[in-house]
């Protein structure tokens, strides 16, 4: 299967996105902000459809919108990012707007499906380069804020007392989440971002108690699920996103069962 160009770039793109999603997702789960991540993906949908309507690249619209929304959420403070109702409303408003944009955009059907459920085989070389640059920048950013972020996630009050700038850390983190969401949306679509961002991270936390190990495991699981899904899709001709969600679900529920069984 690797003799095909499109398969090689699909493996590369999904690999990059999965490692980023697994790493960022761990902190998302640690902070209890998974719903915020989910909402960001829907905002991304608005951005992507808006970009299509105005003849721009959907990836640019996706990244731009999620970034602005992520930083905005961070600036409003920890409180807003935890408010389910506000986030839920933003989420449906964003999807509604996206629908409106698609309504005006005539070649809607295939693009809509690709945005909602992903199209890993459609990643071209220029998009590939963008994905790589964004992923490297995000991982570097995450490494730079990693220690205060961990501290602030586990014990926000103590971190504040010790002089950690909570608002800065929170905004910077959500900006990184926004990029990770946009990358994932390219692979599995905005509706299924959870599968790579949250599934592997939550499974990793059920498998180990050690912080460093859990982060590494989360990234490794996300990578294995993405590549496994791609391989299964190649041999069955079923959608890649289906296989990735299936693998992610099996791993998550398996890890949860293992923890509660013993």
């Amino acid at each position, binding site marked *: 299967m690797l003799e095909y160009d499109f398969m090689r770039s699909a493996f590369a793109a999904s690999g990059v996105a999965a490692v980023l999603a697994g790493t960022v997702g761990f902190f998302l789960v640690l902070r209890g902000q998974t719903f915020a991540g989910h909402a960001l993906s829907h905002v991304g949908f608005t951005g992507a459809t808006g970009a299509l309507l105005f003849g721009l690249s959907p990836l640019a619209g996706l990244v731009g919108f999620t970034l602005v929304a992520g930083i905005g959420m961070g600036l409003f403070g920890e409180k807003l990012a935890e408010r389910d109702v506000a986030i839920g409303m933003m989420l449906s408003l964003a999807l509604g707007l996206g629908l409106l944009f698609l309504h005006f955009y005539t070649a809607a059907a295939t693009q809509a499906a690709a945005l909602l459920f992903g199209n890993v085989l459609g990643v071209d070389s220029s998009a590939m380069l963008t994905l790589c640059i964004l992923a490297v920048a995000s991982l570097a950013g995450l490494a730079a804020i990693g220690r205060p972020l961990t501290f602030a996630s586990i014990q926000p009050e103590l971190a504040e007392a*010790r002089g950690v700038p909570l608002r800065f850390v929170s905004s910077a983190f959500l900006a990184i989440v926004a990029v990770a969401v946009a990358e994932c949306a390219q692979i599995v679509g905005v509706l299924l971002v959870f599968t790579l961002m949250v599934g592997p991270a939550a499974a990793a936390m059920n498998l180990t108690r*050690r912080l460093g190990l859990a982060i590494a495991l989360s990234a490794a699981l996300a990578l294995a699920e993405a590549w496994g899904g791609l391989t299964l899709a190649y041999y069955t001709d079923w959608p890649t996103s289906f296989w990735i969600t299936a693998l992610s679900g099996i791993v998550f529920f398996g890890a949860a069962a293992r923890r509660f069984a013993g």
Partner: protein
Amino acid sequence: MSALSFDAVTIRLGRRDILSAASFAMREGEFVGMLGANGAGKTTLMRAALGLVPVAAGAIRVLERPVKRGNPAIGYMPQNRGAMAGLRLTGWDVVASAALGRRFGFGSLDKAARREIDWALDEVGARDLARQSIGELSGGERQRVLLSQALLGRPRLLLLDEPLISLDPAHQKSVVEIARRICEDLKVAIVFSAHELNPLVNAIDRVLYLGGGAAVIGPVEEVVTGPVLSRLYGAEIEVVRVRERYFVMAGDVEVEREAHRHDHSHDHHDAHA
């Protein structure tokens, strides 16, 4: 030299004066129990000493220096209201997250930092507990692990906010004993806030009582008396002493016990009061 001093300090939250021209000073290496009704300002007082709450008037000094945020001379243990119960990470990793939590940039814990964490855990006898997941520890065990975190950086003043909250009597006793031992071994001053005086009465050097915006510090037998507490509570208070135990009564209601019960239904409102 004083470890912590308040000089005519007024702190205003919203429209309410939590403290109004309150003054007290505690000595270095002193173990002070802080008491007072809900909303009397116990948590606020600590947050003000940490530089997290602005002072409307007066001056706070920590080890004879003005307040600054992120002061490394203060070790702080915030009130733990069960937020860690669902966390799967080991106690060691949770403690370690504070060790380097202030620094941005790459790199991991070096040998010296790891030794420091092990030392702090040994001080509270929690080295073995810290290998387990923090969420799976009992309340008392978890408090011990978190207490070790406050010792990192060898502070000279410890602010412990309600370490006894929702602990059973046996665990209350062990936490108080550990705090007393830390105070003596490390020559560190401790402010230990609590709902009830009795678990602390034999361990503390002096008591700091807050009420009606004022603060009174002194030996237990001088502060926990009818006249002093009546002034702080702004109501007729009678103190009944039975052997080493104190019962603070307003009419026929026991004040501290009542405050404790009251607290469980109003937890979130008073979290920062």
